[in-house]
């Protein structure tokens, strides 16, 4: 008798409060996972970067010594410089993607198939992209190699040449990145108002003005997304460097993420703390951009309510 009444009591308690409690119950598994594998490790990396640690033995606290060493490390500056080059050149993917999107934004037979085939490079793994381009640059018989030989008359092994290797890798990376930006713009162009364009045309808007004042403002969401993915892509770049040159020749194509990996897990012994300090620097650089992106998203959210 009494157990039955507590049961109804607890059930009605649940019924009254379920709207308050349900969101927390639903959030728990996802939040725990995310905290455990993403949020906590970020802080752990900061903490580890103040230690000297080979990944197995005792950790030894060394304060800022890793950073002091870093700021005196030639390889670190090479990586940093390369990341800046990556970032700047990667941004070219945005106008290039826009160009292809505008080119393909027509209604003719089979255009859908063309659009998806142009998108192809983004679907395949960067490992495959890296292998493809390594083959194209291959000295002696690679297609790009031969073209360059025809044009300049000199034999250049792009990936083995300190002057060009980084650019060769970025060029390979641009291929899928342009495809990505293209698809963002293609979807954006679907939403462009044709009547506005016609009206602008009647007002004799054309050429660059048309693009800048009429089309681009309507594509703002697509441009924002393209910026976000391109900046992140450039700063995270690792796969292509690892596949195409393994950081070489003489470490000239290292980027921060690759250098971190190399230091933390290199064949010459693990330097986890030093690797973590490289990761922290990369994180801080990225933070500048992330803050900007989130700032804008928060602004949009506020407007949305």
């Amino acid at each position, binding site marked *: 008798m009494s157990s039955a009444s507590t049961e109804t009591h607890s059930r009605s308690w649940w019924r009254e409060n379920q709207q308050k409690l349900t969101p927390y119950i639903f959030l728990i598994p996802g939040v725990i996972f995310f905290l455990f594998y*993403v949020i906590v490790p970020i802080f752990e990396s900061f903490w580890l970067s103040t230690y000297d640690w080979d990944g197995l033995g005792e950790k030894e606290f060394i304060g800022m010594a890793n950073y002091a060493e870093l700021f005196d490390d030639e390889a670190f500056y090479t990586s940093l410089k390369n990341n800046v080059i990556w970032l700047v050149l990667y941004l070219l993917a945005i106008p290039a993607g826009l160009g292809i999107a505008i080119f393909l934004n027509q209604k003719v037979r089979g255009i859908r198939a063309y659009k998806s085939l142009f998108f192809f490079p983004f679907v395949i793994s960067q490992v495959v992209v890296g292998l493809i381009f390594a083959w194209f640059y291959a000295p002696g018989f690679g297609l790009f190699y031969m073209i360059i030989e025809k044009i300049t008359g000199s034999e250049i092994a792009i990936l083995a040449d300190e002057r060009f290797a980084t650019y060769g890798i970025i060029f390979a990376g641009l291929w899928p990145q342009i495809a990505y930006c293209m698809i963002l713009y293609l979807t954006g162009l679907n939403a462009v108002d044709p009547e506005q364009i016609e009206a602008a045309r009647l007002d004799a808007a054309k050429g660059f003005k048309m693009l800048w004042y009429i089309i681009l403002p309507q594509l703002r969401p697509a441009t924002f997304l393209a910026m976000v993915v391109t900046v992140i892509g450039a700063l995270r770049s*690792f796969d292509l460097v690892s596949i195409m040159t393994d950081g070489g020749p003489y470490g000239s194509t290292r980027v921060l993420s690759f250098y971190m990996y190399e230091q933390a897990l290199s064949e010459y012994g693990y330097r986890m703390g030093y690797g973590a300090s490289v990761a922290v620097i990369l994180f801080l650089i990225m933070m500048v951009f992330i803050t900007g*992106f989130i700032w804008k998203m928060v602004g949009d959210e506020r407007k949305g309510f």
Partner: protein
Amino acid sequence: MFPRPIEHQSRAIQISYQVMLPLALILWLLPLIGVAVTSVKPASDLAAGNYFGLPSELALSNYADVFTNSPIGQYIWNSFKVTIPTVIGTLVLSCLTGFALGIYRFRGNIWVFFMFVAGNFVPFQILMVPVRDMTVNLGLYNTTTGLVLFHVAFQTGFCTLFMRNFIRALPRELIEAARVEGVSEFQIFWYVVLPLMKPAIAALAVLIFTFIWNDYFWATVLTTSKETQPVTAGLYSLNGQWIAQWQLVSAGAIIAALPPVAMFFLMQKHFIAGLTLGAVK
């Protein structure tokens, strides 16, 4: 610099556009075409310096060779063992979090949401040392399970963002009406919201499949042996063994690229909806 619709142009322009399209496409995909052609070239062609011509015969034996003389079959299997559980796990978690963040107003909602968004933008290299260490301590280093757990957690960030925005766009009246009828919150999730989320689930399923299949960084950080390595990491080590045997490298590359490509062509519409975050419709 914004062309008029082609149907309003002169016949000559229309024709030249039709001609330019395939040419542009061939130029764009030239690297890929080159690899595809090389993958069916007999080794003798390459030895004789026939790098760019057509193959003298269709040497499908390269593919047979790759399968019999390398562990690529095992690598592919490993990739599936990582990718499919990750897709399922991520979808389950993010349907739950997306529902919680998309439907309910409660303190801290926006902060939890931005934790997921920010975590998703983080350069994942900063996670490498701690995650690797943690995986070792859990006894999951060099197992596909270890890789799956990390991927599920990390991808949940992106998927929560997507699911939450999708659910927010659903008509709220549906939920209010169900509540008036006395339907419990759990039932609302299961019978009202979940069926409406099918397009979002499909979009994320293809997208996550491709992302995880193509992952290389975590594959090299968390797995080391051919019993556990996915095909991306496997291809890297095979490339080291197959020096100058470009017909094999090409065949291997094509095999590794095939599953996500097939996925993309089968579920194109969903894929693109996923990539654009549903933000630009």
